[in-house]
């Protein structure tokens, strides 16, 4: 770009100096060179021309800098897995402190801490270890039961709770990878649940086919509901966060109204805002039913495993996923490479909505089959965001994160029942996990990890030189 390519002969000093003078003579500081200045002015006037356009600002290019929102989002969404694990550890530690604080015996013993500190420390240990033991027994394996089948039942409950969380997390995570925040999980789940539920209680179809039709109906419902946001973003640039949040309200009140209106979703002969029970022909079979009636894990979990594999394939192996990721990482470069960015937004939202729809379907056909209310989403739409963040938007990461959160849900109840730990503490731990994930530097500082990307890439404040390295 500079002299290395100088086409003229390499010059000696004298020639160079002469050349310098010539250059300077072209234009001294503008004011002192009237001819050049006037020439420039007239050219400027000519350029303004009859069209009367303002001059393009010097140094201005039409390139949009990546918005801070976008960059920040990418950072939160795609950090490394170690941060996720450490965030969980950190949250459990802080959770332990809170459990200790809320424990009555700890409070009592703290009154005479200085005369007999061992009492309080013992109380702390009892409350914390008891609580986490209860969490384990309620979510993975209960040692208090005699035979293995009864002991392992909590794990199947964990997986059952995890099913919609994983499906929803995949939906939110996929949208993240395309650079979109799908906050509309609640609305998509509600719409999907309603469509699936309506088919499941309102139609008479043979076993199996009924279930499949209801499933597909739900997925399409969720996909279309999310697709509205995708289409609006693609066509008008409306921000998907605002659109999806508002569509949550639209869906919620629409469904609430339909649940109160006879002839729509309301159960006949009832005045409650609740649907009739699902027909047997449409309900997801219990996949562990052969082990005993207490095993509630249903087909939804298998579907979620399949969904995880499909999403993994889309993102890492398919041409569509390549375009998804390209748009998510750098929409400008994607556009310059001939990728139709608006259509990618629409496709991504359709698939994202279908995955959240799967969460809704598994709720009505698997978990709550006796008829549902407007509360059927059970906060999954928002928990899904948490799961996607914890899973770093990677399909298998989301799968694991979903199971972890399923374990919190399943184990939370036994924590409360066995140890009297407020259920809110479990939610506090969940929230802390996300809080720590959202602040990687905090986690890194606490665990003294090196900065992101290792030491090879320092991030100087002003140097573009090292940056280019």
């Amino acid at each position, binding site marked *: 770009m500079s002299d290395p390519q100088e086409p003229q002969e390499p010059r000696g000093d004298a020639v160079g100096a002469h050349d310098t003078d010539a*250059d300077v003579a*072209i234009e001294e500081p503008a004011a002192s060179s009237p001819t050049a200045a006037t020439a420039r002015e007239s050219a400027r006037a000519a*350029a303004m021309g009859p*069209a009367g356009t303002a001059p393009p600002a010097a140094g201005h290019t039409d390139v949009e800098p990546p918005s801070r929102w976008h960059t920040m989002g990418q950072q939160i969404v795609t950090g490394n897995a170690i941060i996720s694990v450490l965030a969980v550890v950190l949250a459990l530690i802080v959770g332990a402190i809170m459990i200790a604080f809320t424990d009555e015996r700890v409070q009592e013993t703290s009154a005479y801490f200085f005369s007999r500190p061992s009492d309080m420390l013992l109380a702390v240990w009892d409350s914390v270890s008891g609580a986490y033991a209860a969490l384990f027994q309620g979510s993975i394996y209960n040692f208090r039961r005699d035979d293995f089948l009864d002991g392992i039942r909590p794990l199947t409950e964990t997986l059952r709770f995890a099913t919609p969380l994983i499906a929803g997390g995949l939906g939110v995570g996929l949208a993240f990878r395309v650079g979109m925040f799908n906050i509309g999980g609640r609305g998509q789940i509600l719409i999907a649940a309603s469509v699936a539920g309506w088919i499941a209680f309102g139609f008479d179809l043979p076993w199996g086919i009924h279930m499949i039709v209801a499933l597909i109906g739900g997925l399409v419902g969720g996909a279309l509901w999310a697709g509205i946001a995708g289409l609006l973003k693609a066509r008008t640039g409306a921000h998907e966060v605002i659109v999806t949040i508002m569509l949550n309200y639209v869906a919620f009140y629409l469904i609430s109204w339909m649940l109160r209106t006879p002839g729509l979703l309301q159960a006949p002969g009832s005045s409650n805002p609740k649907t009739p029970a699902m027909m047997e022909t449409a309900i997801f079979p219990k996949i562990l039913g052969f082990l005993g009636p207490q095993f509630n894990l249903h087909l939804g979990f298998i579907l979620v495993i399949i969904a995880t594999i499909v999403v993994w394939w889309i993102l890492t*192996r398919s041409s569509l996923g390549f375009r998804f990721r390209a748009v998510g990482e750098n929409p400008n470069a994607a556009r310059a490479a001939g990728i139709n960015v608006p259509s990618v937004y629409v496709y991504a939202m359709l698939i994202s909505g279908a995955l959240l729809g799967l969460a809704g379907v598994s709720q009505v056909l698997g978990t709550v089959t006796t008829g549902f209310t407007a509360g059927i989403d059970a906060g999954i739409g928002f928990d899904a965001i948490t799961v996607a963040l914890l899973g770093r938007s990677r399909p298998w990461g989301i799968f694991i994160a979903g199971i972890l959160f399923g374990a919190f849900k399943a184990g939370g109840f036994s924590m409360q029942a066995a140890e009297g730990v407020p259920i809110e503490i479990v939610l506090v731990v969940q929230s802390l996990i996300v809080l720590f994930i959202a602040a990687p530097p905090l986690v890194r500082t606490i665990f003294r990890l090196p900065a992101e990307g290792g030491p090879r890439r320092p991030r100087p404040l002003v140097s573009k030189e090292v940056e280019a*390295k």
Partner: protein
Amino acid sequence: MKLELRGITKRFGSLVANDHIDLTVEAGEIHALLGENGAGKSTLMNVLYGLYQADSGEVLLDGEVQHFAGPGDAMAAGIGMVHQHFMLIPVFTVAENVMLGHESTKAGGVLDLPTARAKVREISQRFGFHVDPDALVDDLPVGVQQRVEIIKALSRDARVLVFDEPTAVLTPQETDELMGIMRQLKQSGTSIVFITHKLREVREVADRITVIRLGKVVGEAAPTATNAELASLMVGRAVELRVHKEEPKLGDPALVVEGLTVIDPVGHLVVNDVSFTVRRGEILAVAGVQGNGQTELTEALVGLQPRVRGSISLDGIELSTASVRKILDAGVGFVPEDRTEDGLIGEFTIAENLMLDRSEGAPFIRAGSIQRGVLDDFAREKVAEFDVRTQGIDEKVRQLSGGNQQKVVLARELSRELRLLVAAQPTRGVDVGSIEFIHKRIVEARDSGVPVVVVSTELDEVTALADRIMVMYRGRIVGIVPGNTPRDVLGLMMAGEVPAEGAAA
């Protein structure tokens, strides 16, 4: 003030950015720090400015050891920095920007603007800057904005001024003005550290030259050294300074642009009624100061500008209304001006970036699925062919140097069957060694019969590559002149002056 750096060492993990660097700048001396991108110049200056702490070594001012915990300390000690990317707030006036960071207030917390204005006037007068303290920075040309940066530094009584690649954003004329300012500052006793990788400027203004390569001082040179000497010191081997190109073998007109007008989102005509023709086997270089419509012109050629009037036809096919996909499929290769923004996806691997504009259909996609094997083979072949220095095809592009990133872009674009190559700023931020290579490949493309449009704000690049030169000013064509047009004529044309003769070539 005499500045001394003794044995400065700065490591980032295993990377030694500065390795025992010694540098002495006498009072009233212009000392050029020359080196390729990534040689460690900016790291060294960030150590000097207190942004980094050196692992070992010391900074001395007039023989006294300094300890800078941050830029505030450095400024207080009399060090000023003029960054390549201006640290100005566009919606503030000049005076407000100058006082920013050490605002003095009157009673009741009211800003003492009059004092700041007076200071700006006083410094402007002293050096003949002609800067209005009440002008909004946003309204000022880039060259004047830079002077505001200089005023800012001087208003804090800087006795050592560091200019970090100051000419990257300037026109040739503005560059010459800056050189004048530097000489004036030098006469007033200010020590100047001038960081650059442009040889011409160094030889013009520097009293002494220190060359840095891979974090080490590799030599000192006098300004009398030849370009070839300096370049080989910088790169560490003999560098081919000239682009070897034969006379063009001109074919039929391939790209015909007529009455092309591009309207930006706020309704300005950023490209205004532009017509030109490029023939097969010809390089048309578009010269001009940054921001005169060249960027928009190249974007219009590949369909990235939404509001376009007029006609663009390639081999008889109308492209002005086609989608980007169609245009790329018609055989247009595009090297965008800002590779990190438009050309590459930093988080993608080299292999993925190489298939970026072929994400549908053969050869990389079959049945909706990426053919990993095909892609990897292709990537390995291209990495070897284009000499991309990397640990492997699965390395993220973000981790490559600017030159290697640009080679990836070029490899991708040149590996398709091309009927037109549009290259905007193909060597911006690229090291000398890679520039040589990139130019060679562009000329090869031309020699194989591809019409080429190169946009560059670097006159050296324009004159090195062009068969014909088209100069743009404020969205219009000032003139199309032969490739051997002298620099000074081009310089005037870049300022909007229509040349007396030879306007049609």
